[in-house]
């Protein structure tokens, strides 16, 4: 028993001695509330180590839907917000939770669909007409239903198409209440149509029978904004460190880093910050 106890103690000591990551040792960090689509696109994996190396500040990303990210910031659990729903972002600032909203980058949404294309929308450039066709054909359509930026955009498009009442839709419209990835998995398995942001789609590895059927419509424009959570409202917010991060993201260096992120040679995000 003596030897066993010794081995066990050494194992425990070794286990708890393992540093979880070098970043853990660093002291300063900020908490960034962002969206699942942005994280899953892989952009942060490129951007944040670059920033950490430059400034020694770790940026900790909690990825949720846009709505949840803003709620988290309202509770004071984040220092900075980076999401893509301009209406919600401006409301956030107007309510006094955020200091200022700035554009950072944009990309676009694409309509994905199965190769069988029962609604016959492939190749189209009019998203509203395509949605009407899908509704008419009662083709399976997966919606995120999670108050995300993507979901908000989707609802706005349905409204333009004159089909904004969710009770008026039939069983062909399926709300999964989930992030972009799980919704993509579901759509892929169901061979359903789905509105997704191009970034997540390009980096998604389970594309199955889905492909892009409609793109390029100006109404599919997807703008990302960054906001400093108001330290006046939540005293814990790390004002200097957070502002430093925001300044970097909109700076020439940060914008160039964003532009440099590609998958399969294709650029995912297009920087469009205006000089302050």
């Amino acid at each position, binding site marked *: *028993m003596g030897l*066993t106890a010794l081995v*066990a103690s050494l194992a*425990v000591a070794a*286990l*708890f001695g*393992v*540093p*979880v*990551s070098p*970043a*853990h040792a660093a002291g300063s960090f900020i*908490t960034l509330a962002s969206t*699942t689509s942005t994280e*899953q696109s892989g952009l*942060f*994996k490129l951007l*944040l180590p670059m920033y950490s190396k430059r400034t020694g500040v*770790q940026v*900790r*990303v*909690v*990825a949720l839907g846009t709505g949840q990210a803003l709620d988290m910031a*309202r*509770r*004071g*659990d984040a220092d900075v917000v980076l999401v893509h729903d301009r209406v919600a972002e401006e409301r956030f600032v107007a309510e006094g939770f955020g200091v200022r909203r700035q554009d950072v980058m944009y990309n676009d949404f694409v309509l994905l669909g199965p190769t069988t294309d029962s609604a016959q929308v492939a190749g189209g450039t009019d998203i509203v007409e395509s949605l009407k066709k899908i509704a008419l054909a009662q083709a399976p359509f997966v919606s995120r239903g999670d108050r995300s930026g993507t979901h908000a955009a989707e609802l706005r498009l349905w409204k333009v198409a004159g089909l904004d009442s969710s009770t008026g839709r039939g069983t062909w419209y399926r709300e999964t209440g989930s*992030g*972009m*990835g*799980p919704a*993509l*998995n579901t759509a*892929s398995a169901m061979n359903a149509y789905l509105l997704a942001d191009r970034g997540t789609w390009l*980096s*998604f*590895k*389970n*594309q199955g029978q889905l492909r892009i059927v409609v793109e390029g419509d100006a109404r599919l424009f997807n703008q990302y904004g960054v906001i400093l959570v108001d330290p006046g409202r*939540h005293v*814990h917010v790390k004002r200097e460190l957070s502002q430093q991060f925001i300044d970097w993201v909109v700076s020439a260096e940060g914008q160039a880093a964003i532009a440099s992120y590609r998958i399969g040679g294709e650029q995912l995000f297009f920087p469009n910050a205006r000089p302050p």
Partner: protein
Amino acid sequence: MNDLGQAFLQAVRLLGSADAELLAIVALSLQVSIAAVVIAALIGLPLGAAFTVTRFPARRALVVLCNSLMGLPPVVVGLLVYLLLSRAGPLGDYGLLFTPVAMVVAQTILIVPIVGALSHQVLESAWEEYREQLQSLGCGAWQAGVTLLWDARSALVTVLLAGLGRATAEVGAVMIVGGNIDGVTRVMTTAIALETSKGDLPLAFALGLILIALVLAMNACAYVIKEAAKSRYG
């Protein structure tokens, strides 16, 4: 079947490569779950002993409550801990949200009922055998409790393993209170959830296989220790 085969090969490759990020995730998973089990043992084992050897008002109600809480949905616990630790919540000033400490707290809450209820069950059988003899020798409740706990140690190790299994397998609570932050609060289960979200199913499954292998290894160690103790003490 192709995906599964791919996953298996990927798991082997990942283990062999000793990828630093993977090791960090594995280490954190173990640290969080083991810490939670240790704390849960410190609370749950005495609780189980108290249920067995003492009689106090509301004891039966507490036992029923403890047994029921074994079925606590992890995501609900996650939510509860989140609301407590959020800056907007009562314990917000400690800044514990999105840290491994929050994850340990959430998992401990999940495991304490398991340890309490199952150790109570184990000790009840032992108590039936030992009660009269211990009373005859003059043991008070405290002494009887400690004696029972030590004598039933083999079965209690299994109880703790059940708690450890629950902790290592759980994803809902640690996702909410940890935030699955890359390099800080990402554990095996949340990493698997993330890779699944990204559509990389073979990688997700490969991580799953590694997680299972880890749990198997821990259980095997515990088994060996129990066998050694058995031959020594009967």
